[in-house]
């Protein structure tokens, strides 16, 4: 069997024996800077907009609902099952489908609607990144198949950056089978280094920060 063969070859080459312990790895390097909430929010907006995304800062769930309503007017949309979206009243908007729990139904919807609406677990200020852990509340396809993605997120979920994320979530695998970091719209430069947005994922991304 190749498993034992390969491990044996590795050990022989390194001069180690089976079950041998290891010295401590280099200490983890995480430096969480101090960042005021307003500065973090401003940074998210700058970064997302630099990547041709849109951002909104609103003070209440009702305002968030109004922003989303304006963005999807006359279009079709599907929401994830994130409770915050229902709290905002977004699930009740005309043209919006929500509460889907069947895989096939969700896929078909996501492949045909104009917009996918989700929340996010965190937002990273220094890169303008959405952090999404998949769960029964957040399916993967909603932020992936439709040509546009809107994320509606409570403003206090904005972290400074990667170092703070991995301080809060030292092992994301304990939380979820999938964590995805989304930094701007899907893009490619594979043909003559010319930037094209919306290759396989959404070509438009909108981040609505609430509170």
């Amino acid at each position: 069997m190749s498993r034992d063969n390969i491990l044996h070859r590795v050990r022989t080459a390194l001069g180690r024996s089976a079950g041998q312990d290891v010295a401590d790895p280099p200490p983890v390097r995480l430096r969480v800077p101090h960042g005021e909430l307003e500065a973090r929010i401003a940074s998210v907006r700058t970064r997302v907009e630099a990547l041709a995304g849109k951002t909104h800062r609103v003070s209440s769930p009702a305002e968030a609902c109004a922003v989303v309503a304006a963005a999807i007017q006359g279009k079709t949309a599907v929401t994830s099952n994130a409770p915050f979206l229902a709290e905002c009243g977004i699930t009740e908007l005309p043209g919006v489908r929500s509460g889907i729990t069947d895989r096939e139904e969700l896929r078909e919807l996501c492949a045909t609607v104009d917009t996918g609406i989700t929340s996010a677990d965190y937002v990273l200020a220094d890169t303008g990144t959405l952090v999404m852990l998949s769960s029964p509340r957040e399916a993967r396809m909603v932020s992936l198949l439709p040509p546009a993605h809107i994320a509606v997120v409570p403003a206090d979920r904005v972290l400074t950056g990667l170092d703070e994320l991995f301080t809060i979530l030292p092992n994301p695998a304990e939380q979820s089978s999938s964590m995805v970091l989304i930094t701007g719209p899907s893009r490619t430069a594979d043909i003559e280094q010319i930037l094209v947005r919306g290759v396989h994922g959404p070509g438009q991304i909108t981040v609505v920060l609430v509170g």
Partner: protein
Amino acid sequence: MSVEFDQKIHSTLEDANLQLAIFTSTGRLKQGRIDNVAAEALPDYQELRSQANALKKHAIENLDYYLEQFERNVQARGGKVVYCKDGTEVTDFILSLAKERRAHLIVKSKSMTTEEIDLNERLEHHGLESVETDLGEYILQLAHERPYHIVAPALHKTRYDVADIFTRTLHVPSETVPEKQTAIARSVLREKFLAADIGISGANFLVADSGAVVLVENEGNARLTTSAPRIHIAIAGIEKVIPRAQDLATFLKLLARSATGQLLSVYTSFLAGPRREGEIDGPEEFYVVLLDNGRTKLLPDKSKRQSLYCIRCGACLNTCPVYRRIGGHSFPWVYSGPIGAIITPQFMGVSHEPGLPFASSLCGACGEVCPVKIDIPKILLELRSDVKKSETREKQNRLEKLAFQGFAWLMTHPRLFEMAGRLAALVAPGEDGRWLRTVPPLMNVAPLRAWLSQRDLPPPPSRSFREEWRRR
């Protein structure tokens, strides 16, 4: 140097359009990196490099430990780890799984590791359809070519080339606008994603303490590959394992900046096992193939094993004055540029292309930009030595050996060395301080001519360094 290597280099140098394409593309990627690792953009860049190097060194020196830890954690999350020694074993595994699950269509996201083993060709040979979904890789699959660059695989194709390829293979009207070409690929591949039974991805990192596969990409095709089909298979070299999820904070800051000059790639997926209870989508089965394919051959040598630290960012290609002229397809295997020049001889044997470690000016730029601090120039020198040692005694150039022995002797005799310097200035007089680009008449004898024909000499100085020193 083999005739084939020589010919490929010359045909690339003579192709003006190709030269322009390579130069502008690598130039743009190179500048993106420079802007984003600059002190004002990333003050702790050098500290991050040192940390990344220390982490890789530790992981490789204890590779068996971290592979087993990774394996246990994948299993604990309901996934399965399969060790394979080569491409045949990988193919056999996929074929038997496909047969059991009655799978026919495979979608693939970009993976240099699967290029190593020609996975698509092998699977297609056995009647499976395996479709590349990264735009650049898809174009190359249609054109039956291998990647030109680790990060920008279709760097050598113009939009007109792409138009021809699409018209010929997809039977669509000719379209030369990249935005519209991308839309064509999107719609063809969207159908494939939704119909595929198996998704095959590579892996940028394997996280030992989590049992997770980490994928970094810009298009969204890796996300679709790993979440739309029922089965996800990740294929990774055994060297990809890192100790902890928290170490990603270091590696992710370096990878995208070094590769394309982005702060982070658009999508970073951290995947740990199949979908869990209550999740609406995601794969039902999750496999990680750990591939050796020659990697264990690199481990015994304490210096050269650092070649396995590579995170495939491509920065060394973009900065290399040799790659930027001779391009990716001149290189004899799937890995090109400086990293290809050190990996290929170690994976395939130094006699596979003995000229490869010599196709470098040893300027050191590759080592300087490497985010994990691989000492590429040093390994190139070690491989040159290996090439010489591997040549049979009859093949070794006795004259060259004698010349270098003589040179070594001269270097250890300062007076004679100084005299020889003066003599050289007489034999090869410079013209108005310009470089000597032709062979001087007095040196125009067979072996010297051959040696000098590929080298330019700086003009001899009026006074040597030693003379200047005495005058101080």
